[in-house]
């Protein structure tokens, strides 16, 4: 990922900043600036998700690209945030611990680093919360 692309995504990666349509109440992550439901009547505002949710489904990554190879095996899940938005994120637990429906909460972790001398990408992962 380029340095500038990473930088632009810092609010959503660090703090789960998405959006909400205050007309119908729906939450969006990643943030949307247009509500598909309310269309032109939709009033969109920034919203910081609380970071609590549950695993909808998950997969175990055992073979990853160079950036992630020293962290395999790891659990990559679709997490449904309590407000009702889904996102794909790593859940920090063993493959044996992970299960569908498991409650999770967000934590701040290192996501990847651009080699030994490049930028370090931080962001949100999840840990079991039960």
């Amino acid at each position, binding site marked *: 990922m380029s340095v500038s692309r990473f930088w632009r995504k*810092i609010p959503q990666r*660090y*703090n789960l900043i998405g959006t909400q349509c205050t007309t119908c109440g729906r939450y969006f992550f990643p943030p949307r600036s247009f509500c598909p439901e309310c269309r032109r009547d939709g009033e969109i505002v920034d919203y*910081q998700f609380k970071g609590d949710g549950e695993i909808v489904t998950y997969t175990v990554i055992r073979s990853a690209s160079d950036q992630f*190879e*020293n*962290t395999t095996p790891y659990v990559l899940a679709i997490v449904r945030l309590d407000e009702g938005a889904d996102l794909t994120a790593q859940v*920090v637990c063993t493959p044996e611990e992970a299960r569908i429906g498991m409650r999770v909460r967000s*934590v*701040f*972790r*290192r*996501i990847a680093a651009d080699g030994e001398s490049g930028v*370090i990408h*931080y962001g949100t*992962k999840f840990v079991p919360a039960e």
Partner: protein
Amino acid sequence: MVGIYSYGVYIPRFRIKIPEIARVWGANADDLTKGLGVFEKSVPDLDEDTATIAVEAARSAMRRRSVDPEKIGAIYVGSESHPYAVKPTACTVGEAIGATPHMTAADYEFACKAGTAGIQTCMGLAKSGMVPYGIAVGADVAQGAPGDALEYTAAAGGAAFVIGNDDPIAVINHTCSFTTDTPDFWRREGQNFPRHGGRFTGDPGYFKHVQGAARMMLEQMGKTPSDYDYAVFHQPNAKFPQRVAKMLGFSADQIRPGLVVPRLGNTYSGSSMVGLAATLDVAEPGSRIFVTSFGSGAGSDAFDIEVTDAIASGAFDRSAAPTVEQLLANPIYVDYALYAKHKGKIVMQR
């Protein structure tokens, strides 16, 4: 009155037992654990570093007591394992708690006392009215060269203190420091691991400076050790703080709640701050706490702290974030091979 508005701690879940490290290097495990008074130490996860620890500690502090992030005017992160040589950890913390952009920030480095130096800076800024609140963090993923004496204790963890004038949970009555140029421990630029002066590190380093600052504090405040309910000293191992407490006239009971090193190891910049946090975890309104940090190179910062009614009021919710005791519970033990992988000590083919 300037003081601690809130505080938070983070300790990674992994631990390695000291005998497991001794096994790898053929050292006598019994002698080591007895000599150090340390039984296990924390190990960071593969994706944890000083920045992630600092962020988690700061977020915990903010969960315990609401602070308008806009009013946080300063963030200082003390560490000797900042992820970047150039690019402040404090900016990452500021962004992750929503305090940017209207704030000042910097990273501090003063071996194990960079975090308490940050508390002093925030006190000055808050007291002078330059900022409503400042956050001082001490965090490290401490480095010890494989097989070196430091490897048995170098641990990971950190604590964050929100400092301000407004209804603190603990007033900081006074702070003073004792500093000299002493080569007891150092790491040159570009080197992965620190070096130390061996036996030299004790007397002219730790004991001289901790006693220097502590006696200065007692004299300036006109107090004796028995005037305090608790005392916290920098804890590179369990023996040094126990010995210095005795030298100064503090009892084993006074230092007990803050002596976290036997199960945690030395979290360097986090060490005395996690000890202070563990003491605040059990303190009650009126408790008086004596704190003296130590950083090699060398210096000590002493603090006279008095817990207020606010700690037990509705404004502050200690249970909104884990206590040090809770963070030390339920560890996941790793063997030396996994520990080496977690610490990046295994050289990978590229």
